[in-house]
C-alpha cells in the first residue's frame, strides 16, 4: 500500500506543538496546561503566555464545546479546498476554556446556530496529521 500524502496544506508545526499533533493523530485533543499559574493554553506555546513559566504539561480535552460562530463557505477558496465546498468554518469554545478555529461536519447547515453544543470528531489528513473537527452534539 502506498502512503497517503495530503494534497491539502498540513499544519506547519513548531517543536513545542509536535506532541499536540502526535496525539491528534491518535484522535486525542491535548490542551497545554501551565502547572505554575494553573491555566489552560491554546495554541501551545514555548513559554506560558501568562507567567512565562516552563512548567507546562498536557490535559486531554473532553471534546465538548459550544459553537461560538460559523460561516458556510461556498466560493473563493484555493483549488485544493474546492472539492470540499460548501464547508462550514467555525470558532468553537471548548469546555476547558479555550477557543479553536475548526470545521463543523455532519450537520444540516440550516440547523446551525451560535452557542449550540458541539462535540469533537476527527478528519485524517495524511499519515502524519489528523485535524480536529466538530459536529452537533448527540442529545
Amino acid at each position, binding site marked *: 500500500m502506498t502512503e497517503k500524502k495530503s494534497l*491539502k*496544506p498540513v499544519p506547519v508545526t513548531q517543536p513545542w506543538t509536535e506532541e499536540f499533533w502526535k496525539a491528534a493523530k491518535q484522535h486525542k485533543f491535548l490542551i497545554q496546561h501551565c502547572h505554575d499559574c494553573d491555566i489552560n493554553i491554546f495554541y501551545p506555546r514555548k513559554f506560558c503566555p501568562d507567567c512565562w513559566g516552563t512548567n507546562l504539561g498536557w490535559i486531554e480535552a473532553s471534546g465538548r464545546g459550544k459553537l461560538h460562530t460559523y*460561516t458556510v*463557505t461556498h466560493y*473563493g477558496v484555493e483549488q485544493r*479546498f474546492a472539492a470540499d465546498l460548501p464547508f462550514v*468554518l467555525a470558532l468553537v469554545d471548548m469546555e476547558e476554556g479555550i*477557543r479553536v478555529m475548526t470545521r463543523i461536519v455532519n450537520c444540516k447547515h440550516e440547523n446551525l446556530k*451560535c452557542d449550540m453544543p458541539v462535540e469533537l470528531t476527527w478528519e485524517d489528513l495524511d499519515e502524519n496529521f489528523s485535524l480536529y473537527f466538530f459536529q452537533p452534539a448527540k442529545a
Partner: protein
Amino acid sequence: MGRGKLAIIGIGEMPTGWYPDMADWDMINNTCKEAIEDAGLDKNDIEGVITVNPMAQPKLQSEIGFGKIPEELGLKGCKDICIVNAGGATTTNCLRMAEHWVNNGIAKTVLINHVTRHSGIDPEMAINFFATAGIDLQWEYPFGMTYNAVMALGATRYMYETGATEEDIAAVCVMMRQWAELDPNARFRKPLTLEKVLESRMVSTPLRSYMCNVLSDGAAAMVVTSGELAPQISKTPVYKLGESVRYTGATATQRKGRTGAEGRSAAQEALDQAGLTLGDMDILELYVAYPMGFLRVLETLGICEPGKAGQFVREGHCSPGGKLPCSTIGELSRGHTGSGVSMAYYVECARQLMGKAGERQVPNAKYLLTNAAGGSGMNMIWSVFGRDIP
C-alpha cells in the same frame, strides 16, 4: 508623538483600477511628483522618503527598500529612506516614523508613498500569497480559512448577538457606493441597490460578493512636515492631533478588545489627546475592509445602540449630505490596494480638511476621526486630524 507635531501638506493619488500594462515606476513617479507639487515644494526640498512595503511584490520591495525612489526622482536633498511593514496599518507607522524624523533633525520634510499593482503579480504567487497572508499556517490555514471567512465569522456572531440583518450589512455597501459615485479615484462608480447586493453570489455566509473586496492597483503619496514648519510652507496644513492604538492579536481565536468597551476607550484616548470630543468630529473616515465591521465600529463608538447601526446607515446619515458623513472614499467600491488602503484614507483625511474633495467635500470640515488596522485584525489604531490645533 504629540498633538499637532506632524502635518500633512501635500497629497497625490491615481485612480484605483486595474492597469496590467502600466509600469510600477510610472505609478510611483506620477503620484510622488503630484504630492510634492501639491505641497508647493521643490523636489530637492524633500529630505526623507518612507514607503509602504509592497508586501506581495518582491521586486518592488527590494528596489524601494534599497533606496531607488530618491535616485529615480532626483530628490537631491534626500538624507535617508526607509520601508515600513505593518500590513494595512503600515501607513500609520510611516506617519509615526516621519513624525520622529521631522521633529528630531533627521529631515524637515518627508515624502510617504505606496504603490500596489495586483495586476502585475504572477497569478500562482498571488493565489498563494493571499490564501496565507494574515492566516496562521498551523491553526487556521489547514482548515481552509480565508480572509473572507474570518470576516464572515465575525458577521455571524454580530448578527446573532444584536439581531442585525443581512439588509443592514448590505446597506453599508450601498452607502459606500454613493460616495464612490462622486469619487474620480474609485474603481466602481455605477449606482448600486440593496437588491443587487443581496442577489450577488454567496461567498461565505452571510458575506456575498458585493460585500467582499476586489483587489486592485493603486498608488498614492503624501508630503509631511513638522507642525512648527507646516504653516510656513502650506496654506492648508492638516495636523495630526491625537492617536491611540491597541494590539488585539494575530489569530482569530486569540483576538479580543477590538470592539466594546476596549475599542471605545482606545478611540476616546485619541480624542482626549486632541482635546476634542466625538461630537466635534465633522467626518468619520472609518477603514473597515468589510461592511459589518463598519456597523460594529459605529456601535463601538456609541453612535448607535448594538444592532441599530444598519438602520442608521439606511436612513442616510452616513451618506453624502448626511448628518455624520462616513468613509468618504466609499472604500468597498474603491478597490482594495493591499497595504495601500489605509494610505487612501489618510490622503482623503487630508483632502477633506484641505477643502480639495470636490463633489465629496463635506462643507467646513474641520476635525475628523479615522482608524486603521493590519492583517485580519491584529490591531486597531485611532487618529484625529484637524485643520488647526485646537
